[in-house]
């Protein structure tokens, strides 16, 4: 087994709709875990997911998922589940049938498909609504039903396009817990979302995309380090904020040290976090300042997103 057989690999992938750019020259390789695709409206997130699952074909480049391509549908879709953003269902279908019949196409017998259907409905919290027609579901219920269908056959790769849209806070928390559990089991979970705080909390890595180009990719903190134009912000809660601020200002790489309004903390902006932490250790060990808490203030997805893409992200 080669490393590529465990990865999702995009190699120089471009997609044009006539003369309109979908995505351009996208290359990355993703390991198992939770990966978030982040970008504004029309940036190409759904295009990337549709390319990955073969719903659309790349104009150039190649895509392999665990060593497979969508041209091998039987092996491919056994291992891939996709919860799309298309909010449409076969007319007249019930929630149960929506999960059951695709499982029959996988080759499962009636009893086996029924067992997997019940299991998927339970995991998505939809068991009690399964016999009702999907047309009568709320948006959140339809979202959970699509999620149930995507996980029903126990795929190794789960692709989720805005999976938290339309979910109430409780269902959102349950879904996030499910994604984390699946990732712990060794699955690839690829999520696109505009709810950056939640993405930040659960992602092992991010792919930032803007106007069809991948602008950054990797673990969130690694990506943050690469954004050298923007000094890193570090929040230090301490007993003697003016003393810490003046010590910090003596360092070349510190560009700003702002004492907080309550006088019990300093917001440092530095180009070299490691150097600053060494200074902080020295100050603490010298007994000059008592430090209550230290936390990076902007190595989250939201900040990186603003630095790289230049907006707050907005609904995508």
């Amino acid at each position: 087994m080669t490393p590529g057989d465990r990865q999702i690999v995009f190699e120089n992938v471009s997609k044009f709709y006539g003369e309109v750019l979908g995505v351009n020259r996208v290359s990355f390789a993703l390991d198992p875990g939770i990966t978030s695709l982040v970008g504004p409206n029309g940036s190409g997130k759904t295009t990337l997911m549709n390319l990955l699952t073969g719903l659309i074909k790349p104009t150039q480049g190649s895509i392999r998922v665990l060593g497979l391509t969508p041209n091998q549908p039987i092996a491919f879709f056994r291992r891939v589940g996709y919860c799309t953003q298309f909010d449409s269902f076969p007319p007249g279908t019930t929630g149960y049938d929506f999960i059951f019949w695709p499982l029959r196409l996988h080759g499962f017998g009636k009893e086996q498909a029924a067992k997997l259907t019940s299991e998927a409905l339970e995991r998505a919290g939809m068991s009690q609504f399964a016999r009702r027609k999907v047309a009568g579901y709320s948006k959140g219920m339809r979202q959970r039903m699509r999620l149930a269908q995507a996980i029903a056959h126990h795929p190794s790769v789960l692709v989720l396009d805005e999976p938290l849209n339309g979910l109430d806070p409780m269902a959102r928390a349950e879904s996030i817990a499910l994604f984390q559990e699946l990732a712990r089991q060794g699955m690839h979970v690829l999520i696109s979302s505009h709810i950056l705080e939640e993405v930040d909390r659960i992602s092992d890595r991010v792919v930032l995309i803007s106007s069809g180009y991948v602008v950054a990719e990797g673990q969130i903190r690694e990506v943050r380090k690469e954004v050298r134009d923007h000094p890193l912000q570090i929040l230090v809660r301490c007993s003697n904020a003016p003393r810490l601020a003046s010590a910090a200002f003596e360092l070349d790489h510190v560009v700003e040290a702002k004492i907080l309004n309550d006088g019990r903390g300093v917001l440092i902006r530095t180009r070299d976090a490691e150097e600053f932490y060494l200074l902080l250790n020295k100050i603490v060990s010298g007994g000059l300042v008592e430090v209550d808490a230290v936390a990076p203030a902007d190595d989250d997805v939201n900040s990186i997103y603003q630095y790289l893409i230049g907006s707050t992200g907005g609904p995508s």
Partner: protein
Amino acid sequence: MSTPGLVARVQKWSAEQPWRLYASQISVLVRGEVRRSLFSRRRIWVYLLAAIPVLILLSSDLFGPRSTEAWYIERTTQVLAGIIQLYYVRLGIFFACMGIFTWLFRGEMVERTLHYQFMVPVRKEVLVIGKFLAGTLISIALFEAAILSCFYLAYARFGSAGSSYVFDGPGMSQLGSYLLVTALACLGYGAVFLALSLLFKNPIVPGIVLMGWETIVPIFPGWAQRLSVTFYLKHLCPVTLPVEGPMAIFTVVAEPVAPILAVLGLFSLAFVVLVLSCLLIHRIEITYTVE
């Protein structure tokens, strides 16, 4: 058995016996499509197309003149031949197949549900065959029922003379031929409209062109006539209609072909067009916004 074990066992089974998997998938696809399409409100106009001659014959039975004379049975046979050859084969089945078969894929694009069919472990060719068989089953069931009803209504009113014509005379053989023609018409038109729906975003215009082609094909050389569905069906019709009057435009003057060759020819035509559809399906992308 644990769920992962169950999943692994099915994966192993389908990898070892792909043809059994394909057969099982086709069976599931056909049942799903029949359930989805047969009783759909969108199909009401198709049912009407099939039912119009039945309703006319029924009203004729109820309110029309009654006679048991031999010449009247002969005339009824000619009227029935006209209904089947001119109405059902040239118009009813043609437009019904246009509605049923173009909707198999294009309809799912319009309803934005085709992606579900593309996200299951099913080869696209299997998807095409499954949907084609479902469409064929629906159209054959509908029109064979209509033909049987027409046949019954046409001869039942003659009482024992009608029974004698059907069971002791040429009636039963004619019925068999009409049922065969109907099934082959559904097969041939169905394959063509399925391919057109995969080739064009709006298959109505090419459908009308096809209608024109089927109408004017008799004036073309023999090899060109073989590219028409009605060419093969003509040779299987048991009663020859007179080629005169304004209705002559809908009759086909074809080069003579043996019935068995006509059946094989139509099967070959449907097969070739179905293979084309299997190739065309690979071009389809899920871009609902452009539909």
